């Protein structure tokens, strides 16, 4: 399997602060070699005798050929695990497993793509934009967050995108509001064929709703808390309508994290829909 994941002990090459976030670059040639846009890595936190057993999952932001291959991921400090990660310095080692998940599907022919990122979800979009542009696609960006310092990669988006639209809830950067408020206009102006989105679940739901109105596909990368990232802990499930029309609770880590937006039952995330396969008192077989 070309994309089969590996576990590596990588050396931290650089650490940096990006606005409100942290970014770590780790030397991990085996992960970098197998990388496709949309993949993620999991990181063991707390060192060898850690009391934090669950791995932390992060979308891969960038891969570079330096030192045989490096991967960079972006995170915000949310608890003791990510605080430990934020304290890593160059030459520390990190336990990485990756690349994991199903990457973004790419269009066969050149087309116009709108890439939507919420908070640091935009981190995974730039390598995607790069691959799309090399295939002759037009790329437009829509990035949003609660405030200016939480918009990730606005500069890079401006450099890469045909157009870049920024939104913040408090109006400190770009338009005041959410990405979904401006998305319809961007899709119409660019005559977009497909939308790629990564960010909080509520944003993905809004993006999918806009795309459904335009009748274009939305490829969304969902964020769901997980313990293992490799498909064995069964904790990251989302209700997704399968090709046969049946809703199944599928794992975001191995069946996703990228799904076709219209297949994800966003309204039912955090529940077991009554008509899901195997739901209590519902459909059996």
């Amino acid at each position, binding site marked *: 399997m070309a994309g089969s994941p590996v576990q590596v002990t990588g050396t931290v090459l650089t650490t940096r602060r990006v606005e409100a976030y942290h970014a770590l670059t780790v030397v991990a040639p085996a992960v970098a070699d197998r990388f496709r846009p949309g993949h993620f890595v999991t990181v*063991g936190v707390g060192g060898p005798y850690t*009391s934090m*057993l*669950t791995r932390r999952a992060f979308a891969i932001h960038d891969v570079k050929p330096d030192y045989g291959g490096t991967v960079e991921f972006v995170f915000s400090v949310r608890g003791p695990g990510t605080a430990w990660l934020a304290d890593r310095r160059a030459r520390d080692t990190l336990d990485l497993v990756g690349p994991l998940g199903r990457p973004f599907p790419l269009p066969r022919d050149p087309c116009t793509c709108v890439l939507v990122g919420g908070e640091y979800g935009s981190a995974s979009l730039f390598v995607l934009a790069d691959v799309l542009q090399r295939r002759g696609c037009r790329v437009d960006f829509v990035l949003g967050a609660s405030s200016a310092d939480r918009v990730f990669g606005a500069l890079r988006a401006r450099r890469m995108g045909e157009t870049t639209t920024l939104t913040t809830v408090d109006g400190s950067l770009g338009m005041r509001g959410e990405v979904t408020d401006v998305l319809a206009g961007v899709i119409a102006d660019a005559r977009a064929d497909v939308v790629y989105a990564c960010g909080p679940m509520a944003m993905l739901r809004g993006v999918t709703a806009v795309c459904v109105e335009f009748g274009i596909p939305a490829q969304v990368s969902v964020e769901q808390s997980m313990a293992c990232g490799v498909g064995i802990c*069964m904790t990251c499930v989302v209700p997704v309508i399968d090709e046969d029309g049946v809703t199944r609770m599928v794992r975001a880590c*191995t069946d996703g994290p990228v799904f076709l937006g219209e297949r994800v039952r966003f309204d039912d995330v955090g529940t*077991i829909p009554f008509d899901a396969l*195997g739901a209590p008192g519902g459909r059996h077989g």
Partner: protein
Amino acid sequence: MAVDLRSYLGHVELPNPVLTASGCGGTGRELAQFFDVTRIGAFVTRSITMSPRAGRPTPRMAETPSGMLSAVGLQGPGVEVFAERELSWLAQRGVRTIVSIGGGSVAEYTALARRLADAPGITAVEVNLSCPNVEDRGRVFARDGSAAAEVVASVRAATRYDVPVIAKLAPDVADVVSLARLCVDGGADGLSMINAPLGMSVDVDTMRPSLAAGTGGLSGPAIKPLAVRCVWQVHAALPGVPIVGMGGVMTGRDALELVLAGACAVAVGTALFHDPYACQRILRELEELLQARGFDRLADAVGLAHRPAGAGPRNRIELEESSL
């Protein structure tokens, strides 16, 4: 010299004592990406139910100090799809497979055992007794010794004679020894312990339970002392019954601790979430530890902690011309 790591569950020989714990190894395919699953003692499946189950809503997992709470709710495809797609895949590759079964009534366990009786490639059947009994207002079977024994007896009767039946016990019961004894009297060929005891955490930011289900099974090193205690007590009371020890095994030292307390095999669970190579690493570490302590055979270490204080390691009979 290499240590003889063979382990016996009833009459079934396993080449080594390291297993996956039920519900922690997926379908086997996920772990096969990282290592050869045929190399471990046996692969234990998640608990298989009669019908497909969607499981519990998310969040299903919460990290706790040195452990995690999880409430997956036995999500699975049901026994038919399991036998067709998952068991056949394992059997084709020659993976020694212990199928865990879970049901809501004695009849469901029996039906599962009967359905699996003719399926090829089953090394043993593990009976997950921590399922709620729908006929007893949802009280789990493990909390009611007679119901547990009834389940074990009916599964034993429906399973082929050469396939051992292992009863999986939970530690949060009034008396684990009497539960174990009832299960053995009911026909269990072996016992595995411990299933994850119930725990709970409350998110102080949202001021709601961390898990959608409220409570969840606590696993990881946090429960290792509970596991050692249960294995110790049951081995003391029933020294002839093979015990698969589990609960917070992260290293070879943890595995050896359970072996010394009386387990003849050890299952690795939550450690796999942290380190997909955990089974092989633990096996290697266990072998090194046994070697460093002068053991030729794993079997000589089983239950060794029960010897009287002050006594040296159990005298091993040196057979000059052994037929073994």
